[in-house]
């Protein structure tokens, strides 16, 4: 890789550091571990940069590296992966989702506050949080998410449907928290 290519790669890779740190926080739920994971991801990316095809999606590639690095860490620790299997993901999620969506208690028609949405996303079960972040926060397509998670696109769709349904349920009972202090 030439010097100018490396500089371009570095510049483009740095544009994704916030997204990678957010994903690392989602995987590890620990700032120190997340920072280590981000560094490890960039280290692996630099070493493999020459293998990246020119028309590749760099962001998606970095996410794949990060997830594999995280799974490696879990294997080295000899602990069970934290991303546990959720309910059966083979069935169609949409019909159930939409039936529940018609529930008058579900909060569709009011504008949701950003903080309450963030809080709810962070409180989702690991696998649901991960897929909501990949799709709705980072904007990856189903196929890109399937590549990152190493699972079929159908699983992405069904898991996403369940994750969003869970998110709706959590947001329906949210109450703001506030402390009084002024400048």
């Amino acid at each position, binding site marked *: 890789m030439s010097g100018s290519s490396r500089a371009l790669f570095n510049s483009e890779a740095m544009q994704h550091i916030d997204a990678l740190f957010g994903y690392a*926080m989602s995987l590890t739920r620990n700032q120190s571990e997340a920072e280590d994971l981000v*560094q490890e991801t960039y280290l692996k990316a630099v070493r493999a940069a020459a293998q990246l095809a020119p028309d590749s999606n760099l962001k998606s590639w970095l996410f794949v590296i990060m997830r594999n690095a995280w799974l490696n860490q879990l294997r080295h620790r000899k602990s069970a992966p934290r991303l546990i299997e959720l309910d059966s993901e083979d069935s169609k999620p949409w019909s159930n989702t939409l039936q529940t969506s018609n529930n008058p208690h579900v909060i569709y028609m009011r504008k949701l506050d950003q903080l309450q949405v963030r809080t709810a996303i962070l409180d989702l079960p690991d696998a649901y949080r991960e897929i909501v972040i990949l799709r709705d926060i980072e904007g990856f397509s189903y196929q890109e998410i399937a590549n990152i998670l190493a699972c079929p696109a159908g699983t992405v769709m069904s898991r996403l449907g369940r994750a969003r349904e869970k998110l709706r349920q959590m947001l329906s009972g949210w109450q703001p928290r506030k402390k009084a202090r002024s400048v």
Partner: protein
Amino acid sequence: MYSCEEMRERLTLYLDHELQGEELTAFEFHVLNCDECRSLVEKEQLFLNSVRTAGPLNVAPPELRSRVEDLLLRKESEPVATKTQPKQTRTKLTWGLAIAAAVLVITLPLIAWRVLQRSNGPRIGQPSSFALMSADTHLRRTRGQLPLEMESGTPGQISNWFSNKVNFSVKLPNYQDSSGQEKLYTLEGARLVGFKEDYAAYVAYRMKARPISLVITSASVAQPSGGEEITAKGLKFHYDAIQGLKVLTWSDRGLTYALVSDFEERGQQSCIVCHQGANDRDFIDPLKPHH
């Protein structure tokens, strides 16, 4: 034309922009002609928009950003030694660390002597992580990398915007409008910034085309430390020069603040955004350096 059931089976795909060609055309045709399904699409879209505009959930800490930038600048084959080196690469550095340890043992007496020599001079500690984060945030704002989440020149609107977004109350003074004096600065807007797994309040000002950043968090999350200590009107300020910026941090009534600018001296001019009255000279003057 799709039935309502077929349409609903494809709703998630539609909302995620995964429908294409004839399927997309058929879906949109159905929605156009079915009030119930159109209403459902609108409700789902509203919900997803709320989720999709909730990001970013985290912002990389400035120290991490610096470490990664350093890492990227190194040659591909060069081992990377950083403060929080990932565990997998640590074993490869065992010999390097052993040599470094040996060098440290040999040079430790010399280092200790230098430290003792310096202890007679003025003590200036390392900037706090909050000061570093605030300087980094200011830089990213000036580079156009940090868009504001809300734009307003009205302090009240910005204060209201922060309610329910951070777990403390942000009340910005509105001195300019009430004083009738010439406006020395403009308020531009606000956003949230991540700090220590929480959100801090970021407020952007501009004075004579030069940006000023005010970052606020709870004192339970960050305590000012390091830098040069200056006491003014009973408050202890910490002044740091970080990447050419002037950063003042302090705590007051349960909140910790950072004020960042590129103004002269210690950047005390930036205090005007909250302290513009004549009586406030007692407050700002002690911050000036004494020559």
